[in-house]
């Protein structure tokens, strides 16, 4: 890794920020992926792809994705699940708030570093959904679903690499070697 880092974004990141079409298109695809007929025995392992990709755009495309979009996507997830309306909405809003707060910090990490920092957020999102269910007297909370948070952080690795490639994002900055 080079220690040379520019202070402002360079190259495609500065010239062309990720287009809205890419942002909303990828989110729509992710939402469809959560609707796929996953085998029943491993449902508790299936991560929330929409949330993973939403977190990516919250960090890398703040002009297109914010907390309002998170709320809308959370309510959509509720609708697709047919459960308590507002449950995922609240969990998504809290997640988006945390990611927005950590945005500047997350930007400076490698893909794997970002995954490690997002892991507690993904786990917290799953835990929040389960706790809301318990608070509203839904029967039978299945705590195995916490594992989906872990899998979401693992899914972050290939997805973030893919989108870094698509948007031309790089966290390597260039510092003039004159300082030496």
């Amino acid at each position, binding site marked *: 890794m080079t220690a040379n880092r520019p202070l402002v974004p360079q190259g495609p990141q500065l010239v062309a920020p990720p287009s809205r079409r890419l942002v909303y298109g990828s989110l729509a695809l992710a939402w469809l992926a959560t609707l796929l007929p996953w085998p029943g025995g491993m449902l508790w392992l299936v991560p929330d792809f929409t949330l993973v990709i939403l977190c990516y755009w919250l960090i890398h495309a703040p002009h297109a994705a914010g*907390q309002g979009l998170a709320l809308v996507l959370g309510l959509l997830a509720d609708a697709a699940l047919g459960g308590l309306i507002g*449950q995922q909405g609240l969990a998504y809003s809290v997640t988006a708030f945390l990611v*927005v*707060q950590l945005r500047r910090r997350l930007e400076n990490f490698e893909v794997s570093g970002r995954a490690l920092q997002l892991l507690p957020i993904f786990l917290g999102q799953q835990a929040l959904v389960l706790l809301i269910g318990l608070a509203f007297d839904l029967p039978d909370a*299945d705590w195995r679903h916490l594992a989906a948070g872990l899998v979401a952080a693992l899914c972050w690795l290939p997805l973030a690499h893919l989108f870094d490639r698509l948007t031309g994002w790089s966290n390597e900055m260039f510092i003039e070697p004159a300082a030496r």
Partner: protein
Amino acid sequence: MAHAPMFARAIGPTVRLAMYGLACLALMVVDSRYGALNAVRSSVAALVHPVQAALARPFDLLGDAAEFFSQHAELVREKRRMAAEGERLAALLQDRQELEAENTRLRALLDLPPTAGTVAVAARITRILPDPFARRLVIDRGSADGIEPGRPVVDAAGLLGQVTAVYPDSSVVTLLTSSEQAAPVLNLRNGLRLIVSGTGADSLLEVRYLDMHADLKADDVLVTSGLDGVYPPGLQVARVLSVEPPRQTPFARAICQPAAEIGQHRHVLVLKAKKEEPTP
């Protein structure tokens, strides 16, 4: 503005979170206490379920293709087994027809009203809902096919659950293994009436609050008693695995294995009420 702006012209992230959080809390309260959002849920489901069914289609075709290339010998064996099974069932059915006729005669003799029959509607499972709170399936038959909420759902081996939500072209089935579900049953060996409930585990049912002197043993077969008016009598529900003696409570508890082969079939049967023929 998603991040904290340098000069506060937009609403800050914290205030946004508070607003959205309160809105979601209000939605959840309205939904769970008053059921006011059921109309919204059913209209969204009417939009989402066709998309799901379309997404499930290629995977079904893939499964069918895999079956198409399965071994010839296996198919021949399967065919022989099916033929034997068919003969056995036909023999049983003859017996059953005779018994049914006799039953009707005896009922007429005793002046008892005829029992309400049911019609089976076959349905395909399009999706298993990834819900940590209940075990639910989506099937591809809805109110257009005459499905009503509360109808029992069975597979080839026994009772699977109950229809809990009906949309125009799809419905949601809650499995008996969900922990809030229960079915009135009787022990086939001695007619003892019990209530079987789900445990939240995929392959276990239980009889809670069982009288400690009740005559229930391992390998007893439990069938629906029909006392609740929801499940018709005589559907296989479970086989008793073990009876736990009471510990620190006045009640015993029986662990049972569901008769239905949960998670093994792509098709289920919904038992519809038989339409009364209008008498001229």
